C-alpha cells in the first residue's frame, strides 16, 4: 500500500515515547559516526592529499592540473555522458512515473513498477554492461550494433537503463503530491488540459523534475564499473582516469594526480547536490 510513503518529502518518523533521561541527539550518534567515517573523513583526506606534493609539503599548484587540456577532456567527457544519460533518464522516467501514478494507487501494476524500479535502479555495473554486450556486442545475440561503441551516446543509452528506474523512484512522490483539486480547480476556471500543464502542473513539478535530473546526473557521474566493463581500453571520463592513474606503475606522483581529479569531481557533486537540495525544498513546500 504505502510503498512510497517513506520517500515523501518532509515525512518524519513519529516521536515514540522518548525517555526523559536520554538526550534527543543520542539517537543521531550512529548516523553521525557513519557520515564521519565514510564521508567526511575520506573527503578530508582527498582534499588534503590533493593539496600536498608526494613529499608531504603543501603544494596548491597541483590543483592547476584541472586546467590541463587533457584533464579537461575527461571532465567534458564525464559531463557529456552524465548530461545525456540524465536527461534521457529524466524525460522517459518522468513519463513512466506519470503513467504509473495515474493508475490505481494501490494497484498491482504500481507496486510491480516500484519494486522493479527499485531493483533496476541498482542494476548498474558489470552485470549491466555484460547484459548489453551479450545482446549488442561484437558477438551479440541480437545484433552487432556499432553505435553501441560510440561515446557518449552508446554508453549513455546503457546508463539510461538504470537512470530511468531511478527517475521513476525519485519523481513519483512529486507526481503523487499533485492534488486532484488543482486540476479540477483549473478546469473549473476554464483551463484546457494543455493550459493546466502549462500554468499549474508544469510549474509545480518543475523544481522536482530539475532536482531529480540533478540527482540522476550525480548518479551517472559516479557510475564507474559499467563504463569500465563496457570499454576498458580507452578512458573517456574522469573516474576511468582516476582508476588508471591509481593502478598504473609509473610512480607515486599519480596518486596526487588522482586526488586532484577526485577533488574536481567532489566540487561538481557538491554543486549539484546543493542545487538538488534547494530545488527539493521548494518542491516539498508546494507538493505536500
Amino acid at each position, binding site marked *: 500500500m504505502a510503498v512510497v510513503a517513506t520517500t515523501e518529502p518532509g515525512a518524519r518518523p513519529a516521536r515514540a515515547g522518548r525517555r526523559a533521561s536520554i538526550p534527543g541527539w543520542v539517537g543521531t550518534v550512529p548516523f553521525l559516526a557513519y557520515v564521519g567515517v565514510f564521508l567526511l573523513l575520506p573527503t578530508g583526506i582527498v582534499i588534503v592529499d590533493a593539496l600536498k606534493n608526494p613529499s608531504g609539503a603543501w603544494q596548491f599548484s597541483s590543483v592547476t592540473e584541472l586546467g590541463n587540456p587533457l584533464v579537461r577532456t575527461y571532465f567534458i567527457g564525464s559531463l557529456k555522458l552524465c548530461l545525456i544519460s540524465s536527461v534521457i533518464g529524466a524525460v522517459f522516467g518522468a513519463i513512466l512515473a506519470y503513467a504509473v501514478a495515474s493508475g490505481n494507487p494501490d494497484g498491482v501494476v504500481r507496486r510491480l513498477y516500484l519494486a522493479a524500479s527499485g531493483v533496476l535502479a541498482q542494476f548498474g555495473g558489470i552485470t549491466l554492461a555484460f547484459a548489453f554486450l551479450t545482446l549488442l556486442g561484437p558477438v551479440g545475440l541480437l545484433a552487432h550494433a556499432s553505435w553501441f561503441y560510440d561515446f557518449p551516446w552508446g554508453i549513455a543509452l546503457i546508463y539510461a537503463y538504470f537512470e530511468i528506474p531511478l527517475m521513476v523512484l525519485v519523481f513519483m512522490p512529486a507526481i503523487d503530491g499533485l*492534488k486532484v483539486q488543482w486540476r479540477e480547480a483549473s478546469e*473549473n*476556471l476554464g*483551463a484546457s488540459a494543455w493550459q493546466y500543464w502549462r500554468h499549474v502542473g508544469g*510549474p*509545480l513539478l518543475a523544481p522536482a523534475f530539475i532536482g531529480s535530473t540533478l540527482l540522476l546526473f550525480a548518479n551517472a557521474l559516479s557510475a564507474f564499473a559499467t563504463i569500465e566493463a563496457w570499454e576498458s581500453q580507452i578512458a573517456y571520463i574522469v573516474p576511468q582516469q582516476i582508476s588508471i592513474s591509481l593502478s598504473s606503475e609509473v610512480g607515486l606522483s599519480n596518486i596526487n594526480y588522482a586526488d586532484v581529479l577526485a577533488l574536481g569531481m567532489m566540487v561538481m557533486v557538491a554543486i549539484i547536490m546543493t542545487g538538488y537540495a534547494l530545488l527539493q525544498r521548494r518542491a516539498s513546500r508546494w507538493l505536500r
Partner: protein
Amino acid sequence: MTSPMTRTQDGTARAGVEVRMDGLSRHYGPVVALDKLDLTVQAGELIALLGPSGCGKTTTLRLVAGLEDADAGRITVGGKDITHLSASKRDMGMVFQAYSLFPHMTARQNVAFGLRLRRIAAATRDKRAIEMLELVGLSTQADRYPHQLSGGQQQRVALARALAIEPQVLLLDEPLSALDAKVRAQLRDEIRRIQLEVGTTTLFVTHDQEEALAIADRVGVMKDGRLEQLAPPTDVYSRPATSFVAEFVGLTNRLAGTVSGQTVTVRGRDLPLVDPSTPAGPATALVRPEAVTLASDSTGDSGPLVGTVIAVTFLGATSRVTVDLGDTTILAQLTTADAAELPAGSRVALTIRPDPVLVSADSPALSEA
C-alpha cells in the same frame, strides 16, 4: 417562471440563470451516490444542500460542475442542455471542500488565473483581482502565497477566485467546514451578502444545519442520493416533510403518543399534526426542545409532565436542559437565565407548546430519548 430572488439592482447587475437537474443519477460500483435527483435552482437563488455524510451532496455539485459524468439524467442551465459539456466550458465558479489554491501563485495570481485563461489584459485582470480580494476583505494579503495564509483566508481567496470569472453559477462545497465558529459565521454572512449583491445562482453544500438555515433561500435536505424535502428554512424547521428531516434539522424529542383525528395526544397533551391525514393509532411524535417549557415545581405531585432535571448544557444565550420523566427523558431549550433557576436535581413541571408536530413513520409507540 417567476424568480423572486433575482436582484435587479441596476443595468449592470447580472440576473442569474436557472439551473435544472432532471432525474440525475450516479453510481460508484454498487454505491448509489445520486438516485434520480430532480432539483431546480431558480435564477439568482441560493439553495443549501444539507444532509449527512455520504448522502450525495458533493456528487451533485461535481455533476453540475462537469467534473463527473452522470449515468442518467439531464442538467440544463438557462434552458441550455449542458449534460455533456466539458467542465472547462461550463462557466461555473466552484469552491472545493478541501483547499484548492494553486500553491505556486500568490493570492492575487490565484484570483486572476481564470481571467488570464480568458485572455483579459494584465492590467484589467490585476485590477479585477484586487477588487475581488477587497470584496472578501483580503486586499492587504494580495501578494501572499497560500502557505502564508490561514485556512479561513485561503477559503476566502478561493471564493474570490470563483467569483472573479463572474460565473453564471456558483458551487460551494462546504467552503466553511475547516474554519472555527466565529470566522465561519462571518464568512457565511459574507458569502450571502456577495451572492445577493451579484445575484449569482448558487448551490451551497453543507452538513451544518445552522449554516443551511441561516444562508439559504431554500434548503434541500438529502438522504441516500435523494431529496427528502426542498423548502424555505422556516418550513424545513417547523414543518418537516419526513421524520428524517425533523431529526436531521435541529434536535427532536421522540415521544410516544396516540393519533386521533387532527391531533396527537402526548402525555396527556393534545398537539396539532403537521400532516392531518396521519392514520389514527399509536405513534411517535417529534417535539422540538424549544417547544418544551419548564417551571419549578414544589407541589411534590407526580404526573406525566413532572420530572427531575438531570443535566444542563450551556450553549451561550440558550441552554439545553435534560429532564427525567421516569419512563423517558426529554430535552428542553430555555434561555440561559431561565435555566439558571433550574439546576440539576430540581423538580420541574413541563408544558408542551401546541406547535404542529410530525409523527414518525417508523415503529410507532416506542419511546426513546
